[in-house]
């Protein structure tokens, strides 16, 4: 036992770095800020068994809810996004926190239902994958697993409603994917990226601009890294945006292009979003109705 005591002394002698205190304080402040930011969402937990049945229910519930809302006489149509349902699983090392958005108030019910069913389906898939992985991990002797989904209304003007959904998967490290839907409220249609342009030439115009912009940002700020010049030949150099790259339209009619975590940059950069100057794409736009 004396040897154990000596070993303990070595453990106790692990030097405490002078930075520790400030790291701890900063982390607490940061966590507090995130906590406050998330606070307005009402959260409730439900059992695992109940969650499965609620999923089925919500598909039926959301059109009904939408219907009842639209039957209330209001001046003009109020299109809004609400949290229809939240699923939480907290089992030791397994955590799921899914927040499902629902669009209400669109007169175009087909579009509304299509969007809402998609949001429910996305989360249902996440939930089912999570359950599968959780069972597999439990069988394998345990592990850590987390999944979270949330959404954010990025633009909400008279004309445009843009909703971004985020999925965060945690197995050791975490990956984040983001998808955005942009709706023309007046004409009640879903805007896609290709639908804004005359032809495919926008892909190259935007990609060329982005590569320049990434290089510029890296030159000006050593904290920033994008995978544009593949020196290490890691094999995922950014070459071009996908035709249906995640995009959004800002309140002042600018196009933004987003990339998932790890898509064009190391994980610490997170999800990255670029605003595209309109002159870069002006000649390719069908009109400047959405983008100015």
């Amino acid at each position: 036992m004396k040897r154990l005591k000596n070993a303990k002394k070595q453990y106790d002698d692990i030097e405490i770095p002078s930075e520790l205190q400030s790291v701890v304080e900063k982390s607490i402040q940061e966590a507090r800020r995130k906590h406050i930011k998330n606070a307005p969402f009402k959260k409730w937990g439900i059992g695992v068994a109940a969650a499965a049945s609620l999923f089925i229910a919500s598909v039926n519930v959301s059109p009904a809810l939408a219907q009842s809302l639209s039957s209330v006489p209001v001046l003009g149509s109020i299109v809004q996004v609400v949290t229809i349902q939240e699923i939480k699983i907290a089992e030791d090392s397994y955590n799921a926190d899914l927040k499902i958005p629902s669009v209400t108030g669109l007169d175009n019910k087909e579009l509304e239902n299509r969007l809402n069913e998609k949001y429910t389906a996305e989360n249902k898939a996440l939930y089912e994958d999570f359950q599968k992985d959780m069972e597999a991990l439990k069988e394998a002797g345990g592990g850590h697993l987390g999944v979270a989904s949330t959404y954010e209304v990025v633009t909400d003007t008279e004309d445009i409603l843009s909703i971004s959904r985020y999925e965060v998967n945690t197995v050791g490290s975490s990956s984040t994917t983001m998808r955005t839907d942009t709706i023309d409220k007046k004409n009640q249609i879903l805007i896609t990226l290709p639908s804004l342009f005359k032809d495919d030439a926008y892909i190259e115009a935007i990609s060329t601009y982005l590569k320049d912009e990434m290089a510029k940002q890296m030159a000006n700020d050593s904290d920033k890294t994008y995978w544009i010049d593949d020196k290490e030949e890691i094999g995922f150099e950014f070459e071009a945006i996908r035709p249906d790259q995640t995009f959004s339209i800002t309140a002042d009619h600018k196009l933004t292009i987003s990339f998932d975590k790890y898509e064009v940059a190391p994980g610490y950069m997170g999800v990255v979003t670029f605003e595209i100057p309109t002159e870069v794409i002006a000649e390719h736009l069908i009109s400047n109705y959405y983008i100015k």
Partner: protein
Amino acid sequence: MTKKEKYQLVENYIIENQNTLYRLAYSYVKNKENALDIVQESIFKALKSIDQLNEIGYLKTWLYRIVINTSLDFIKKHGRMQAMDDDVLHSFMPEQRDVEKNYDLYEAIDHLKEPYKTIIVLRYFEDLKIDEIAEIQNENTNTIKTRLYAALRKLRIKMEEKVEA
């Protein structure tokens, strides 16, 4: 207790026990930067999932569990760091031969497989009780006792005291 008070309590506990949390993280990753990262991430995780802490009596074991899991996740992802700290380097130097044996044991503990290493660290370095370790590991106390004996056998330490619950 209001939610605000709960946050305050957990935050204060973290601040008061920051050295313990750091040492625990360091015992896994053996490197200052990574240990600081783990402390930071553990604080985020703890304060984010504060709702999962139902009884404040479990605060200590709950927080230990978060730090341990974060550390093990890190090792799983990055592999074991073979950083040569001064401590380890000195242990290879001939003039330090008299202390070498102790370093051997410390090193041997470090090379134990999970969950044996964590159990030894918690029991003998952190002086936790068996039932506290059981809570952290989410096992019953008998399992922990069995594992603790097995770990000591692996380390070939002659037991001079009984494992106390």
